[in-house]
């Protein structure tokens, strides 16, 4: 009996011990589990948030895809418009030279240095009086003979400058106006190539769609080439004329003109190699002859007052067979003007031969008649026939070539045209 009771008590003791241990364990674990549960809760919230973010991300991606899909329509449109730019580009590049061509800037050509030098020299030698100004805006100078002669030389230069301007004014104006129109048209189309961003392209879609398979400025281009041909003709006459009376300053002036002439001619050669536009032959002749009259007056006056103008220098007299007397005038060492007379006093009729700086006759005035030559071609004559005119031109060439040789003085009559 006692044994049974003992066993029971033992079991109870064990159970109590185990239960106690269990209670202690549960108690300890509960505290830990509370922390764990809090973490778990936090994790669940995080998972929830992540889930929401994923949904949001998906929505955003879908929205962006939608916007990008809409954008793709624009992109296609932009791409097509860029293609229009590429169609336009070669046409613009082809004609860029005309856009960059510089015309005009035609300065007034007064060789002040040369005349200052002449004036000072004369003042120092006491051959002219002091200037006295009075009355009127510009005043009047007291003029000695010396001063009068110098003034003739100055005025001659001024008149020549005016004649040159008169010759080129209309064609320069025409060329400037045609250039303004060309630049306007070309500049507009060129500006379409400056459109770079997609927005710029789209904003100008209507304009770009007008870019066609041809240059949109073709009409303006042809008008410009026509005007340039006229301007080039006048420039060539001017360069030739100036070339014969060059003073020191005018070398740089002429050099600028020649550069412009070369640039203009190159442009014309590119667009109209046959030079089929510009002035008609009749117009050229009319302009040239009109200018030639002024030019001859200039040369004659310059020869008379050559002491005051370094453009033309008296180069001496030559007698051919004691029958004809020649007076030669040079510019920079080259004969540009020859007078001929049967009298050593050069009274009565005086024959005249005007040359360019390469010895090509420009105008011949002899008792047989007159001949005007343009670019080596006879454009006007008053002698008895064209053959005679041609013979006079040939004679003028030989005289120029042989004038300073012994053969000329002794052999002149053997080739003189009578």
């Amino acid at each position, binding site marked *: 009996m006692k044994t049974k009771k003992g066993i029971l008590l033992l079991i109870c003791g064990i159970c109590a011990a185990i239960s106690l241990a269990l209670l202690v364990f549960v108690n300890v674990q509960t505290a830990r589990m509370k922390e764990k549960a809090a973490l778990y809760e936090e994790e669940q919230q995080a998972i929830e948030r992540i889930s929401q973010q994923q949904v949001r991300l998906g929505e955003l991606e879908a929205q962006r895809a939608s916007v990008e899909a809409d954008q793709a329509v624009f992109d296609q449109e932009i791409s097509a418009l860029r293609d229009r730019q590429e169609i336009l580009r070669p046409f613009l590049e082809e004609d860029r030279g005309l856009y960059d061509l510089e015309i005009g800037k035609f300065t007034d050509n007064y060789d002040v240095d040369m005349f200052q030098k002449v004036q000072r020299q004369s003042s120092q030698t006491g051959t002219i009086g002091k200037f006295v100004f009075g009355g009127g805006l510009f005043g009047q100078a007291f003029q000695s003979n010396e001063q009068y002669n110098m003034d003739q030389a100055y005025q001659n230069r001024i008149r020549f400058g005016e004649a040159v301007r008169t010759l080129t004014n209309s064609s320069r104006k025409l060329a400037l106006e045609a250039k303004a129109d060309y630049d306007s048209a070309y500049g507009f189309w060129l500006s379409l190539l400056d459109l770079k961003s997609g*927005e710029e392209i789209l904003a100008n879609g209507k304009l770009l769609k007008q870019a066609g398979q041809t240059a949109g400025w073709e009409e303006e281009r042809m008008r410009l080439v026509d005007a340039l041909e006229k301007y080039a003709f006048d420039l060539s006459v001017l360069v030739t004329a100036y070339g014969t009376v060059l003073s020191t300053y005018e070398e740089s002036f002429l050099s600028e003109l020649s550069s412009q002439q070369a640039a203009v001619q190159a442009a014309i050669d590119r667009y109209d190699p046959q030079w089929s536009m510009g002035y008609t032959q009749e117009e050229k002749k009319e302009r040239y002859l009109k200018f030639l009259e002024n030019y001859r007056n200039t040369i004659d006056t310059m020869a008379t007052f050559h002491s005051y103008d370094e453009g033309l220098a008296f180069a001496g007299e030559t007698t051919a067979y004691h029958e004809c007397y020649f007076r030669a005038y040079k510019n920079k060492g080259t004969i540009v003007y020859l007078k001929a007379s049967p009298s050593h006093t050069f009274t009565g009729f005086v024959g005249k031969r005007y040359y360019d700086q390469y010895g090509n006759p420009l105008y011949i005035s002899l008792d047989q008649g007159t001949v005007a030559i343009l670019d080596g071609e006879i454009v006007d004559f008053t002698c008895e026939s064209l053959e005679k005119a041609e013979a006079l031109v040939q004679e003028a060439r030989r005289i120029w070539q042989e004038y300073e040789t012994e053969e000329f003085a002794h052999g002149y009559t053997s080739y003189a045209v009578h």
Partner: protein
Amino acid sequence: MNKKLTAVCVAAASLLTAGAVAGTVTFVSRYGYLWGYEDSLETLKAQEAELTAQLAEEETALKEAQAAYDAMAAAREADTWEHHIRQAFAAGEEAKAEADMVMLSALEQVSIVTFGTEDFNETMKEALLDEVMGAASDKIPLDYIITGVTEGVSEGLYGYAQSKAKDYVSDVLGGDIFQVAGIVDQLVNANSVPAVLANQMAEKQRTRAAGLVEFIGMEKHSVQDQRRSADSLYQLMDMEEQIGAATGRGTTLQKIQIYEQAVEYARQYGASQYAISQMARWKEETHEN
């Protein structure tokens, strides 16, 4: 006694055991779900942070895409003939006004002209341009702009810049603004330039400067007028250079730069005029706004 003690012990043990069982059951029922739970909060936080960044990126990308789209849509919306014509008109007026400023400014530096540079400064120029642009924006009927360009009408707000410049020229240029005699005197007496030549040079300058003043005062210029005037301005400045050299006082005029500016503005003006006439034609042909 022993029996009672035993019974108490058994009861206590039973109670304890029951309490333990109940406690365990409660524990298990409350925290059983945490069985096998491993802490992954840090990983989740990292993932969340990554997603947050992705979201921010995506939102930015979406905003950018939307903005780009909106800009494109607005650009296309603006692609109307009317808008282009108005833009070209405004650009042309600005170029024309700028060209006038260049000419005025150059004229003021030419010795034969007597009005001073202080009369027309940058601030006035800016104010004038603002006025021009304001006037050019949306107030002028479209037909009026087109007719003005294609038929050369010059009334009302058209040629606004020129009107302003004209006012300025009238205000400043009252009376004789050219000191021809002074130039002649300098050339002749100071440096032995022959009187004939000095008179010619001064007179040429006066004529040319007067022409330019008249040009600036004109209500309407064609692009051809502008180009010719730029050329004339160059000649004026070149002669100023020659006079400066002859009198020994020199000149600070930047003739090439000024000429190029004048030509550039003339080009811009011309391009806008050409654009307006072309666009008016295309508008007519396409029957689009």
